[in-house]
């Protein structure tokens, strides 16, 4: 038996050792940093403090920044749900066979292309004199100039575009799993399409909707590249604040504390939603 234990340990050690070195120890180090007064480089003595976590009290503008991030998260998640759920249901229910596979692949494909490249693409569509502006003036030459770039809507458009495939994917998995017999039974009892949609398809797609919403909300509140490129001066979010602490201001302890505050929010969201999901759908 002892020999088999050693084999198992030897198989596992490289992967988990690597994860420890590159993910778990760094997270531990950052937690440690978040309680320091200043980064412990050189001969500076260690001074512990809880001040970094009181940043939201000491610096009221951070509350505005956090609120902007939450608004961006809510708008993006909401719009993805609104656009993605019907698309997922259409994919699962209105297509089949080969064309379903091709359409599925077409939806997943952009999600594997570089996120940065896609955000960059939007700058060319949304800027003044960009594609949108040009197209509008072909139709209505006297219309005012459309310059959406560097605005709140630009950030939302870019993020919805980036995260929509997640929502379509998770909702599709739920919608495709609905047993055709339920729908046939409802139809044979005289239910019309809107009724079937509201009473069967929508409720049974809900788990996909919820997991899609989590998969989107969590990374969106931590996004920094999209708000920077598409939002310009408007795009000050928790993500860009944290990035600034590490890249510009070099206040690593504050950046670490802000990161951990955000991580706590993420964990709470995961905890609450997984409990809600299992309470509601675990019985099935």
């Amino acid at each position, binding site marked *: 038996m002892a020999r088999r234990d050693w084999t198992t340990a030897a198989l596992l050690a490289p992967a*988990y050792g690597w994860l420890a070195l*590159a993910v778990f120890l760094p997270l531990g180090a950052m937690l440690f940093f978040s309680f320091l007064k200043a980064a412990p480089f050189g001969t500076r003595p260690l001074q512990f403090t809880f001040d970094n976590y009181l940043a939201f009290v000491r610096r009221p503008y951070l509350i505005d920044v956090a609120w902007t991030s939450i608004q961006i998260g809510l708008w993006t998640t909401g719009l993805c749900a609104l656009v993605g759920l019907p698309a997922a249901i259409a994919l*699962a229910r209105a297509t089949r066979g080969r064309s379903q596979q091709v359409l599925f692949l077409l939806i997943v494909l*952009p999600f594997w292309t570089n996120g940065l490249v896609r955000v960059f693409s939007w700058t060319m569509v949304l800027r003044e004199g960009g594609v949108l502006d040009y197209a509008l003036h072909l139709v209505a030459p006297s219309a005012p100039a459309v310059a959406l770039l560097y605005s709140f809507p630009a950030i939302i458009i870019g993020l919805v575009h980036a995260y929509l495939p997640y929502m379509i994917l998770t909702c599709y998995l739920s919608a495709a799993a609905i047993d055709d017999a339920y729908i046939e039974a409802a139809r044979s009892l005289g239910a019309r399409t809107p009724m079937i949609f509201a009473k069967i398809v929508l409720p049974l797609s809900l788990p996909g909707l919820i997991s899609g919403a989590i998969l989107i909300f969590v990374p969106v509140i931590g996004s920094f590249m999209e708000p920077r490129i598409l939002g310009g001066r408007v795009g000050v979010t928790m993500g860009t604040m*944290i990035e600034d602490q590490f890249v510009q201001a070099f206040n690593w302890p504050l950046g670490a504390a802000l990161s951990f505050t955000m*991580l706590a929010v993420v964990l709470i969201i995961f905890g609450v939603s997984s409990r809600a999901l299992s309470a509601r759908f675990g019985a099935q």
Partner: protein
Amino acid sequence: MIALGRTYLLATIAFLYLPIAVMVAMAFNDSALYTLPIEPSLRWFASLAVNAPLQSATRNSLLIASATSVIATAVGAMAALALERKRFRGRSLLRLLLLPPIAIPWLIIGTAMLVFFFWTGIGRGIHALLIGHVALAIPYVVLIIGAGLQTLRADLEEAAMSLGSTPIHAFFSITLPPLLPSVLAAALFAFAVSLDQFVISYFLSTPGVSTLPVEIYSSIRKGFTPEINAISTIFLGVSSALVLVFAQLSHLGGKRDSR
């Protein structure tokens, strides 16, 4: 209703592809200021040939992605084998530990790596990028190969071993051949994860040593030319080709066969 659904679906797909199409079209536009209408030209592709920073960033990206793919697949396959085929205490905890690298926002993981690597003297640069990318890819590899292993019968290996084969020989002659598509899919996935990674690379690269996405980001912020479109177009082609091969290998999207 069905026709409405299909139209809506196609409109959604059009939304997903619109900006990408614009980006590609602008790569072939002669104007440096992205003016419309488009005048076809290949000058931006030609000028890539003399753009040293972009070339070195591309080389770094390909190098790191290849190394990540090899290392993460080897290391991840071993872990998947132990998690699927061995019984031991703490197995479910180890499975759970695969999730944080996937679920925690990259911004947090990236800054944590920066802090830790700087503090311990590992520093930044190619080696740091490689350490970070492999760590991100490992959980995906374990999950993909683990799923492949689940569909294979474990008793064949045991039969081979009871007939006198060594465990290593049993693995290479019995388990590996039918597992090969999963291993290949995992390797491609790891390659794609590394090639597309921006956030972590951003924190771990140095001004001299960066990857293509980091170089694109700094060009976008400094003021850019359609050269960025040209290189992005090439990049897009490579990523898309990888995904198509991956889909073919893992039969992605073919779950509901309605014949």
